[in-house]
């Protein structure tokens, strides 16, 4: 049986410090209120990571992140599953026992980076699962 959980403060969300300039973030509604689970902009800049000298392309990339509420009933755009619906219902009945459904990436894609290594060789790397294409409640 799930151990009862202390009720978390629902509005308090962990945010990356906006002052981190290499991660430019726009979260649309900010912490203002109940924002439905969706994709938010998160741009990762190689210049600000101190890597621009070696990178031929790209200069940075949009990584995005998922944030927002996953409250029952789910709309179609929340990409949820039968299990998520069941968990959300049980959470309504036993909020102390079963946690809320999470807003997470449901589709990810790769990025490619072209750079010089320390011996001036040119390297092309494909890194998988780096860009959020879609979010959902799971």
């Amino acid at each position, binding site marked *: 049986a799930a151990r009862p959980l202390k009720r978390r403060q629902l509005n308090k969300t962990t945010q990356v410090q906006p002052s981190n300039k290499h991660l430019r973030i726009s979260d649309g509604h900010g912490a203002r209120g109940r924002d439905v689970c969706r994709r938010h902009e998160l741009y990762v800049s190689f210049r600000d990571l101190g890597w621009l000298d070696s990178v031929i392309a790209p200069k940075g990339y949009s990584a995005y992140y998922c944030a927002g509420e996953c409250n029952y009933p789910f709309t179609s755009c929340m990409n949820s599953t039968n299990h998520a619906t069941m968990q959300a219902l049980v959470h309504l009945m036993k909020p102390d026992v079963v*946690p809320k459904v999470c807003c997470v990436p449901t589709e990810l894609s790769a990025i490619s980076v072209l750079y010089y290594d320390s011996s001036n060789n040119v390297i092309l790397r494909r890194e998988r699962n780096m860009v959020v294409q879609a979010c959902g409640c799971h």
Partner: protein
Amino acid sequence: VRHGPRPPYVFPQRRLGVHERRNMQREILAVLGLPEPPRPRVPPAASRQPASAPLFMLDLYHAMANDDDSGSLHSHLGRSDLVMSFVNMVERDRTLDYQEPHWKEFLFDLTQIPAGEAVTAAEFRIYKEPSTHPLNTTLHVSMFEVVQEHSNRGSDLFFLDLQTLRSGDEGWLVLDITAASDRWLLNHNKDLGLRLYVETEDGHSMDPGLAGLLGQQAPQSRQPFLVTFFRASPSPVRAPR
């Protein structure tokens, strides 16, 4: 000391120090599979012209970034997670003042090859200009790996590829050297030696330079280079720093 269920761990809400942020940036680069920021590179004036390897790799980058695995540009691209071009090489020739056969040899520094990656394909790319002597004849270009050199006799060679072309042809000649990759993965601290021979239709050895094959004296945009395609092994769980 708390009793009862422990709340889920919440990342402490405080401003990170400069050192901590620097560590975070390194961690981000590591997640991206990129090494630590190498020393800022100020390319020497000569290399500021577009060089052959970066030009070729930029085309691959656009194909990979656009998920163009149609093989139009390169058949191995779709199955590759990493493509490395190697440009650091030493060239040795045995041409006119020795008896036949003539050859041109390229020694490549492969120390940057990462461990844990499987080679799916490897190519040696060399530019050929039109050759006038002999005029309009068939040339056979063969490539060998220099497995072991001996002071008192010829080197041990391992055949890699053979291409047939016309003396008047021009463009990039691509020789498949995938078969050599087994050895270099075992010991990539040792330079990879590739030896190029050219023979005419009647079997006479010919100086590769006379056949129009450009070595290191070629302009930047036509320098020979090596390209290797790797398939990442199932991604090991990356331990954070």
